[in-house]
């Protein structure tokens, strides 16, 4: 369903991502790992339309999407969460999810002001969808609180609910476990599995937490300095000498 082909990005001569190839099938959970600066975030920004490739492209369900605007890509069914969350902090928890849901229940200005046409039906529907998602991530009780007042782990869950509200077929998560304790990480793993099953999503995640990646992902791709150095099942990747070198060499 998602395929990057020959995807390359250079910043003023620095190759952030080199001839990258990745295929993600429906319902698959794929992890992208690698040391800092290996091109993981560049990859996400290319797929979600915040960056334009220097070469190559991204196909989603057969369409080339690498020149489309982020909002258009979201509409096609790719949602993402950010490293460190990017919520509307002064909006309430419910409003954050509704902001995502309105993509599927659009209302125009005349309808919004007059209450005619789709306004009521769509407003009710988007609110219903938002409540359903808040139930799913366990935040229904705090729906009226400002998003910025939630503890960090819950902000993460809220960002996932907001992403799901846009009705994605592919969910990209940028370091979803960063800053979570082991208990919260275990809950996150359960949540990701549950939403994959319930919404029949494909999931790509960038993650440093190896426990999460190895337990959750069916397939893992390893990047270093913009190049793909390994790809396979968790066991295969763990056994790969180049991966060990990239990690140990980089850190030690």
């Amino acid at each position, binding site marked *: 369903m998602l395929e990057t082909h020959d995807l390359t990005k250079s910043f003023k001569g620095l190759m952030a991502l080199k001839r990258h190839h990745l295929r993600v099938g429906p319902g698959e959970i794929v992890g992208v790992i690698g040391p800092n600066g290996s091109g993981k975030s560049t990859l996400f920004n290319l797929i979600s339309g915040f960056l334009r490739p220097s070469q190559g492209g991204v196909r989603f369900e057969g369409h080339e999407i690498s020149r489309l605007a*982020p*909002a258009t890509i*979201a509409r096609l069914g790719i949602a993402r969460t950010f490293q460190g969350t990017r919520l509307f902090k002064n909006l309430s928890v419910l*409003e954050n999810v509704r902001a995502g849901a*309105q993509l599927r229940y659009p209302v125009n200005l005349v309808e*919004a*002001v007059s209450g005619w046409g789709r306004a009521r039906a769509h407003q009710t529907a988007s609110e219903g969808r938002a409540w359903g998602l808040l139930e799913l991530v366990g935040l229904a009780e705090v729906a009226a609180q400002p998003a910025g007042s939630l503890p960090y782990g819950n902000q993460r869950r809220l960002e996932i609910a*907001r992403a799901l509200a846009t009705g994605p077929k592919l969910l990209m998560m940028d370091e979803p476990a960063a800053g979570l304790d082991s208990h919260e990480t275990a809950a996150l793993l359960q949540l990701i599995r549950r939403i994959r099953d319930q919404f029949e999503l494909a999931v790509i995640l960038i993650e440093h937490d190896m426990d999460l990646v190895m337990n959750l992902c069916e397939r893992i791709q390893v990047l270093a300095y913009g190049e793909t150095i390994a790809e396979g099942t968790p066991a295969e990747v763990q056994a790969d000498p180049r991966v060990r070198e990239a990690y140990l060499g980089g850190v030690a």
Partner: protein
Amino acid sequence: MSDLEYVLQQLINALSIGSLYALVAVGLSIIFSLLRLTNFAHGDMMMVGAFATLFAQLAGLGFLPAVGVGILVSALAGVIIERVAYRPVRGAPDVTMLLTSVALTYILENLGILLFSSSPRNFPLPDWMNHLYSFADGRITFNNINLLTLGVTLLALLFLNWFVRRTQVGLGMRAAAEDLTAAHLVGLDVNRVIVVAFVLASAFAGVAGVLWAAQAGVVEPQMGFTPLLKAFVAAIIGGFGSIPGAIVGGFVLGALEVLIQSLPGDWGLSPYRDALVFALLIAFLLFRPGGILGVRQEVKL
């Protein structure tokens, strides 16, 4: 007793002028919150609204329908300046957008002078607008223009509050104002949100333009300049980019101006009213840039 009457009279004056400032400042704040753009051409939307009302009346429309036309035309003008002038420079450095808006102001005002000449024109009003209410042997007086200014402003602000809090498009506006990137990401049609913001802001400016012209009795191409500067001060005093801040700032500034003017004559301060107001602006920028409401001035990445 006469002290109380004096205070009441000044309070009426303060509310009347303050609500005009609030009405203009709200529009500045809405646009700033979305684009980090100080829209100096906002004052010219007042001019557009007032002139459109004038010409609609000259074309034979009654006063109220003519005002309706004026508001529609100023809203349309807002959409046009967004599309023609601001959208092409969106995402450029703040300074580029600022200069664009200054340039746009000059273009619009000179266009106004070219089309309508720079001499003020009489702004016809129906008699009922000037109807005077007089109390306490004429020591408290106000007319329907004062009442209407306050009433219309309150209605406009209530509408705005309802719009941004209760409608889906308003939710989109608040979301986009907080984080434009995240708004793109959840698939919000940011262009539409921005157009709606310009429609609202410019329609408000059109209303303010008509009220301003009604109080002055005349319209002229540069009529938007002074109220724009004052509204800018009001928006910053209250907290730039925040709607409640603009409202608070507008009324505070109105009250302050009236207070300065009503100080005893031998203090000799009233001629320096505008100087004092702008000194206050500088003081706020230096010591409390978030304004009275303490709006966070975050740097966007």
